[in-house]
C-alpha cells in the first residue's frame, strides 16, 4: 500500500494498540499483587476464618465493587487487543522463513506470549467458573475457603493450577519489561537494568506465591 491510510484515532494504530496493551497490562499486574496478598491468607491455620472474612469484604465493599468493574474492563480490553494482534500476525508476513533461528536473537518468553496468553485465558475462565460464578452468582452454600480447599485437594485441579502459573510466569517475564518499554518509561540503561531485574523477580515471585497454595493443600491431604 503506497498511500497513508489515516487511522481512525491514535489508539487504533499499531503503536496506540500496544500502549493500550501495556497500560492494561500494568493495571492487571497490580491486581495480581492484591489477589496474591489475599490468597496467602489461605495458608493461615485458622480453618479459613481470615480468608473468609477477606472474601466477604471483597464481595461486599462498595469501593471494591466499583474497582471490580474496571478490573473486568481491563481484562476484556487486554484480551481483545491480544486477539487483534494474533489475527494480524500472518498479515505482515504471509510467507514465513523455511529456517528461522529466532532463539539466537530473542528470549523464549517474548516469542511465546500467544501461547502463555491462551493458557492463562483458559485458566482464567475455569478459575472464574470455579470460584467467582460459584460463590457470587450461584450463591454456593459453601464458604470461599471450603471451595478452595475442595479444589486444591484435587490433584488434577492443582496440577492445572501450577502449570497455568508457570505459563503466567512466562507471560510476566516478557510482559513486565515490555509494558514499561511501551509506555516509554525506560529512560536510560540504569532504569532498564532495574526494570529487567524487577521483572524477573515479579515473574518468578508472583506465580510462585500463587502456586504454593494448592501445593500446600495437596501436601496436607497426605
Amino acid at each position: 500500500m503506497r498511500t497513508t491510510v489515516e487511522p481512525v484515532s491514535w489508539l487504533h494504530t499499531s503503536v496506540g494498540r500496544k500502549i493500550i496493551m501495556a497500560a492494561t497490562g500494568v493495571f492487571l499486574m497490580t491486581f495480581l499483587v492484591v489477589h496474591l496478598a489475599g490468597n496467602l491468607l489461605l495458608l493461615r491455620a485458622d480453618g479459613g476464618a481470615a480468608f473468609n472474612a477477606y472474601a466477604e469484604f471483597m464481595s461486599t465493599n462498595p469501593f471494591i465493587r466499583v474497582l471490580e468493574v474496571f478490573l473486568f474492563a481491563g481484562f476484556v480490553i487486554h484480551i481483545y487487543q491480544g486477539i487483534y494482534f494474533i489475527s494480524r500476525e500472518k498479515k505482515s508476513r504471509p510467507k514465513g522463513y523455511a529456517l528461522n533461528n529466532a532463539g539466537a536473537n530473542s528470549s523464549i518468553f517474548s516469542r511465546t506470549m500467544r501461547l502463555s496468553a491462551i493458557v492463562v485465558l483458559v485458566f482464567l475462565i475455569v478459575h472464574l467458573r470455579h470460584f467467582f460464578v460459584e460463590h457470587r452468582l450461584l450463591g454456593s452454600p459453601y464458604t470461599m475457603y471450603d471451595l478452595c480447599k475442595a479444589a486444591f485437594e484435587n490433584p488434577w485441579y492443582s496440577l492445572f493450577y501450577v502449570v497455568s502459573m508457570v505459563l503466567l510466569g512466562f507471560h510476566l517475564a516478557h510482559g513486565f519489561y515490555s509494558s514499561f518499554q511501551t509506555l516509554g518509561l525506560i529512560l536510560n540503561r540504569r532504569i532498564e537494568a532495574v526494570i529487567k531485574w524487577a521483572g524477573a523477580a515479579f515473574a518468578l515471585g508472583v506465580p510462585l506465591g500463587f502456586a504454593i497454595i494448592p501445593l500446600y493443600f495437596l501436601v496436607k491431604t497426605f
Partner: protein
Amino acid sequence: MRFTLEIWRQKNAQDEGRFEVYEVDGISPNTSFLEMLDILNERLIKEGKEPVAFDHDCREGICGSCGLFINGRAHGPLPNITTCRLYMRHFKDGERIVIEPFRAKPFPVIKDLVVDRSALDRIIQKGGYISVNTGSAPDANSIPIPKAVADRAFDYATCIGCGACVAACKNASAMLFVAAKVSHLAMLPQGQPERRQRVKRMVAQMDSEGFGHCSNTGACAVECPAKIPLSAIAQLQRDYIWANLTPDLYAR
C-alpha cells in the same frame, strides 16, 4: 572449504519460487559471504545457467543493500553485522547454508534474493526530514548542542535502512527503523518544529505499508548492523504518547 547451499530461487514477483541446492568447493575461509556467492554465480554463468540475483553495493557495511536471511538469521549467524562483513570462516566446513530473501508483506520479492524495500523510503518521506531556510550555509556550531546529546542523536542517525530489523522481527515490524529516525531528530533542536507531526505521520505510514506491530522481543537490535538501541523505541513511544495526549500549543 566446501558448502552445500540451499538458495531461494524465484524468477519474478509472480513466480511461486522454490529452493535449489548448489555445492561449492575450494572456498578460502577468508572469502566474504558475497564473494562466495560471486564464485557460485561465475560458475553458473559459465554453465549457461541463470546466476543468483542478490542485492549488494558498497561491500563495506555502510550501504545496507546486502539483505540476506542466512541460516535463520538476518545477515547470518553473527549479531550486528551486514552480510558483506560475514566471512566463510564463520561457518563450519561442509555446512549446509540456507539462504532466503527478507520476508515481510511490505518487502515483495523482485527476483531470487532481491526484495523491494522502498516501503522504508516512503516512511522517511512522511516525516524523516527537517525544514531549513535556503541561503548561505550557517556557521558550524552556531546552535549549541551538548556533546552527550549530539552523540545520542548520532547513534540513532547511523541507521542504514537495511531492513534487518523487519526481517528478524517475528511480527515483521519496522519499529526500530522508524524509531531510529524519530529519535534522531527528536534529540536535536533542528528536529523540533516537525516533532509532533513526524511521529504521527511516520507511524501511520508504517501501518499503511503493512508492517506488523512491535512486541519488544528485541530481535531487531540484535541483528541491526548499525547497533540502533531499543531506547530508540522507548523514545518513539514517549513522543507518540506526548504528541497525542498533550495539546499542540502552536496549532491554529
